[in-house]
């Protein structure tokens, strides 16, 4: 029965196997950090386009900047995700589904709020920035809490600070707060997440059960 060392070892081995398989299953959710950088670049393109910093005939349509960039980036993200998933044959995990739900809900909220705001003309640039950064803060906080990832929760705090700064500052200060938050929370954090992912992939080998 249980009293012998051999049996104890076998039971401990089973417990370790459960832990390692749980970790192995979770690994399939972790190839998404490139989307953080992609969306950071998309935000910069949209800001550059809408502010007239990008030249050329297409870039001249400033009012199209945000809808076109956001819808285009969403389609690109969806297409690349599908391609990556079908290539690796990785199943959808519970955590993966939860993460996808958070970011999909955030994206729908953004469109549902910002598009009518833009069409109705209610709300100025500072309010726009405050809404966008606040929603990004909410999604990052939810993801950070779900994954127990302090770095992502710190990003949520940066987004919320940018949201508050946008409402209290001038238009220029609001833009600067937005640009800084994008750089820290999308570009820097995204690259950091990609490095962690790459390290994790290198560390993981075949599990022989």
């Amino acid at each position, binding site marked *: 029965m*249980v009293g012998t060392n051999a049996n104890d070892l076998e*039971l401990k081995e*089973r*417990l370790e196997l*459960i832990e390692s*398989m749980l970790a192995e299953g979770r690994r399939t959710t972790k190839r998404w950090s490139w989307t953080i950088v992609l969306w950071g670049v998309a935000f910069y393109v949209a800001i550059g386009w809408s502010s007239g910093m990008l030249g050329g005939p297409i870039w001249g349509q400033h009012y199209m900047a945000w809808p076109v960039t956001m819808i285009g980036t969403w389609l690109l993200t969806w297409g690349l995700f599908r391609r990556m998933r079908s290539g690796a*044959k990785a*199943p959808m*995990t519970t955590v993966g589904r939860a993460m996808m739900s958070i970011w999909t809900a955030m994206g729908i909220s953004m469109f549902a709020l910002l598009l009518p705001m833009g069409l109705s003309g209610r709300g100025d640039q500072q309010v726009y920035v405050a809404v966008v950064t606040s929603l990004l803060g909410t999604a990052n906080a939810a993801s950070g809490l779900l994954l127990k990832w302090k770095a992502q929760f710190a990003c949520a705090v940066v987004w919320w600070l940018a949201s508050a700064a946008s409402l209290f500052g001038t238009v220029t200060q609001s833009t600067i707060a937005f640009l800084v938050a994008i750089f820290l929370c999308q570009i820097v954090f995204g690259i950091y997440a990609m490095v962690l992912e790459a390290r994790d992939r290198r560390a993981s080998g075949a599990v*022989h059960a």
Partner: protein
Amino acid sequence: MPELPDLNPVVHGKLRLALLTLLMGVDEAEFTWLREKTGASDGNLGAQLLKLEEAGYVSVEKKFVQRKPQSLYRMTETGRVALSEYVAALKQLLGNAAI
């Protein structure tokens, strides 16, 4: 002294335990993904999955995708309960062994 629980022999098998744990965290999984994660051979993996299927712990859906056969495995509610009870029993046994 409280009676020690018995471990479910179907779940206790090393590969079967690995498979149930993997399936617990996903909606469904392909045979090839399970093989990749466990490092088991096709024959052994198929045999252990069949035992789990016969016990009612997993269900399988076989279909063709782009003319290639695909087996999708899902954990059933019975399997979920069996694994939860196994983990609880394992923890109790290890607790009694004073680790």
